[in-house]
């Protein structure tokens, strides 16, 4: 039966085009997350190839899991090895996860992707939800804290040298809607965000490469281009109105579409043929509602990066959208209602969010006043402001409208040392408009906001004293001797703790005649602590204990090594060893 000529295009060719379009993105991830950190000395040879290993493992995992599944079902090796595009769920999963996802979790996620989300639905072409997204949802909802404690989205270079969060996480801690200085400046220029030289998931940071891939895939008719176009345009339009009514330029909607993996999600995940509508009207509605949901997630929920969640949510509605889309081709009236709903939502969200953001700019939810003491012309504030990984507590004394004194009473931010190195507190006292400290952007922004918010209260707040018990609480010291045990006459065993990179480091130190005999690590949470072991750092300390202050920290694990070294110095100081010997 005819037709007796067929188009040369095949499913396999389309999938090959998809692989070609993904190649630059994989290479970019290798350069950004492997090559640059290696070149700058923040990681070793394993770290150089780690992005490729990471993507490779997830890709291989879904291939193996699917093949085994088919083998069990069909009991026929030939049948099991038949190409069912089993690498794709894993490949995409690898690209949309944080680089610091432990390999075990990655493999578990691949299992969920290929078996639960794909094969149990009936295999290639039958699944309702995008397999990679299901795998990611599983990993993030079960293991988020584990992954974040290991450094989350940050590659070794970002962890150690620049330390930022992803642009949208950063945006979510900023007071109000933010501005170019607070949203874009921490990442250099908008161009940097466009190119993708920013923290984010393994392969989804480069909007530029996603755009090129979109052009390539549309030219070769591989993807349903209507979906990404309407999706991105919807987010752009809504954020354009939001930005515009807050006096922000065109950069604001661009910032919104370049960040949070929106481009990657729109071009690669939302167009997954199996889980997206087949009818043109369905595709346009799909794109519109994806845009609407993403805006809702970004602005109205505590989850700033809503792209992948939006796609997973919309997967459920594909059947309905296709029903509307297929009947709507003969009778467009049927499609009118969802279109009207979409337009109303777009208009409502644009202006609704714009207005609420305008109002909330005055009140910063991350700021609170613990105490306020008015004494003639002098007002003493004790205030808190949310910082990077802790709440900053500060004392500000204002006299006749000028800041008389500003000091930080308590903090536990990972990169606070940068603030101290830069003498930033002193500088801020002089001028609240100075640039943030690179490497501790969020902490410095928080400090700036702390002063701004306090001055704001000084000018507009009620002139009465506030007293809160919290204010007088002693800050928790970062260093602590937990226990002290006398072993024999000359030997004492101490258990101490000191701050490391992403948590406390607990050490057991044995002193004999005030000489360090043994140090063992009881507890730590740092991602790169293994570098201490690789560099034999503990032994270096024991061997050079007389010159302990001169020992270098380890690049690539600066904070972990610093934590160990300084903890021991503090112990030696407290038991009086350092004074005796040096």
């Amino acid at each position: 039966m005819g037709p007796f000529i067929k188009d040369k295009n095949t499913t396999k060719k389309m999938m090959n085009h998809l692989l070609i379009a993904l190649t630059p993105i994989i290479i970019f991830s290798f350069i950004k997350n492997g090559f640059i950190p290696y070149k700058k000395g923040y990681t070793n040879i394993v770290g150089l190839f780690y992005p490729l290993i990471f993507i490779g493992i997830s890709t291989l995992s879904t291939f193996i899991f699917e093949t085994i599944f088919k083998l069990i079902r069909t009991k026929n090796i030939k049948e099991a090895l038949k190409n069912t595009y089993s690498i794709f769920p894993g490949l995409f999963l690898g690209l949309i996860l944080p680089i610091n996802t432990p390999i075990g979790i990655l493999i578990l996620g691949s299992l969920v992707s290929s078996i639960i989300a794909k094969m149990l639905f009936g295999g290639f072409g039958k699944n309702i939800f995008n397999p990679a997204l299901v795998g990611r949802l599983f990993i993030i909802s079960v293991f988020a804290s584990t992954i974040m404690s290991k450094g989350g989205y940050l590659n070794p270079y970002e962890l150690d040298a620049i330390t930022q969060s992803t642009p949208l996480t950063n945006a979510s801690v900023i007071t109000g809607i933010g501005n170019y200085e607070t949203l874009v400046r921490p990442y250099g220029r908008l161009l940097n965000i466009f190119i993708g030289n920013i923290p984010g998931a393994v392969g989804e940071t480069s909007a530029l490469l996603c755009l090129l891939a979109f052009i390539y895939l549309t030219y070769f008719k591989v993807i349903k281009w209507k979906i990404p176009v309407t999706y991105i345009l919807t987010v752009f339009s809504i954020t354009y109105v939001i930005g515009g009514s807050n006096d922000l330029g065109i950069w604001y909607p661009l910032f919104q579409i370049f960040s949070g993996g929106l481009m990657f999600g729109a071009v690669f995940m939302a167009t997954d043929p199996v889980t997206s509508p087949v009818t043109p009207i369905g595709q346009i509605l799909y794109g519109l509602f994806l845009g609407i949901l993403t805006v809702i997630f970004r602005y109205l929920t505590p989850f700033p990066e809503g792209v992948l969640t939006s796609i997973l949510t919309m997967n459920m509605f594909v059947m309905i959208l296709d029903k509307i889309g297929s009947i709507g081709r003969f009778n467009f009236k049927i499609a009118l209602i969802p279109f009207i709903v979409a337009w109303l939502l777009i208009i409502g969200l644009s202006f609704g969010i714009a207005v609420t953001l305008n109002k909330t700019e005055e009140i910063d939810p991350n700021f609170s006043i613990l105490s306020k003491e008015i004494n003639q012309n002098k007002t003493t504030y004790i205030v808190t402001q949310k910082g990077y990984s802790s709440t900053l507590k500060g004392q500000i004394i204002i006299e006749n409208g000028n800041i008389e004194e500003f000091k930080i009473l308590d903090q536990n931010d990972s990169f606070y040392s940068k603030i101290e190195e830069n003498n930033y507190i002193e500088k801020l006292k002089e001028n609240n408009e100075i640039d943030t400290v690179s490497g501790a952007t969020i902490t410095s922004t928080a400090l700036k906001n702390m002063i701004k918010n306090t001055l704001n209260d000084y000018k507009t707040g009620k002139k009465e004293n506030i007293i809160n018990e919290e204010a007088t609480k002693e800050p928790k010291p970062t260093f602590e001797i937990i226990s002290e045990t006398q072993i024999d006459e000359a030997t004492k065993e101490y258990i101490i703790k000191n701050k490391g990179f992403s948590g406390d480091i607990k050490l057991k130190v044995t002193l004999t005649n005030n000489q360090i005999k043994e140090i063992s690590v009881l507890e730590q949470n740092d991602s790169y602590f293994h570098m201490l072991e690789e560099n034999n750092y503990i032994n270096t300390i024991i061997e050079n204990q007389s010159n302990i202050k001169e020992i270098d920290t380890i690049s690539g694990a600066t904070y972990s090594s610093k934590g160990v070294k300084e903890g021991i110095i503090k112990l030696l100081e407290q038991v009086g060893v350092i004074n005796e010997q040096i």
Partner: protein
Amino acid sequence: MITGLKIPTCKKMSIKEKIGVYNKMKYVYIPLISGNDTNITISVKKGDYVYKGSIVGKRKGNFRIPIHSSVSGTVVDYEEKYTSNGRKVKCIVIENDFLDAIEKEYVNNDITKYTKKEFLKTIQDCGIIGCGGSGFPTYIKYNIDKKIHTLIINAVECEPYITADYVLFREKCEEILEAIDAIREINNIDEAIIAIKEYNTELKEIIDNYIGTYLKIKVVLVPDLYPMGWEKSLVKYIKKTDYERLPMEKGIIVNNVSTIYAIYEALKYHKPLTERIVTFTGTNLKRPQNVMVKLGTSASEIIKKVGGLNKKNATFVAGGPMMGNSIPTDDIIININDNCILVLDEIKESIEQACMRCGKCVENCPAKLSPVLINESLKTPEKLKKLEPMRCVECGLCSYICPAKINLREKVRLAKQELRKEN
């Protein structure tokens, strides 16, 4: 917006040669079928002598279109023969006396001098039916009181490989233009529009040479898309309007160019429709060309005449590669609606892969159907009804474009059958 797709044309191989003529067959087999109707009254018996153009049968019921003999000779037998629809049909076997004797010579020098009534009677008596494949009696199209404002001459021929209409137009351009103008005049039609594909610039030049005196005929170049030759697409492109069932609703008549030529011969010579141009082409044919074939001739004789096959194993198709039917043998009888016999290298049924829902079949369907969804709902008639598979014109584009090589047209055909059963 016109939905369609650029597909390979494969027309070069048969376009150069002049129209060949074949009339050496010893027997012709006149199929007793009209449209899809085999309910025919036979008006001759064994041993009768028939002239070329004598009526041998007539359709019963409404559309009374006569069936004519295509040669002169003696009725010798009845025999079941394959026709292009893949079924065996009863045929009248006439032994050719090679005289081409006709009952009564007739020439009309001014073919515009017909009244509408005479016109309708002539084309009905001459058995003129749509030569583009529909087989719809032409006189019925014209037999209406409504004002016809536009006549569209369909010379788009968007099926790959087929060049029958093209070479006919090229070689009989003068006659065709004369007929168009006569039809326009007789039926009081405001304008006539000839639709040809945009790449046919050569043909456009030929038409432009003759068109000078015909002020109310114009040529429109249509985009190289498949299925641009579908009436609905054509009317939409040229007149920017949609119709429900027939173009007549909007005062438009669409005729194939071969039909126009048949009308010309009917008006000029009262010559019944007993022969037509058939494209014999395909990769497995030695000398592809167009041949003027007397209806009732077996295709295998002509294939031999045009040099035979390149390879022994071949796939025979009656019609174009998109909409044609595969036929088990080349021994089929050529009838009015056969415009092409396609001989290809043997095609093995390709294995259907899993559908990945790329949506290409939906995107490209000129009838705005959603073949993938129809395929998914084959077992649920309620859903199927809403997807309106009855709108399908079986152009085959969905099967052509499918990257998983799923024969979606067959699925839609199944859906149609399913719904017919329901009713």
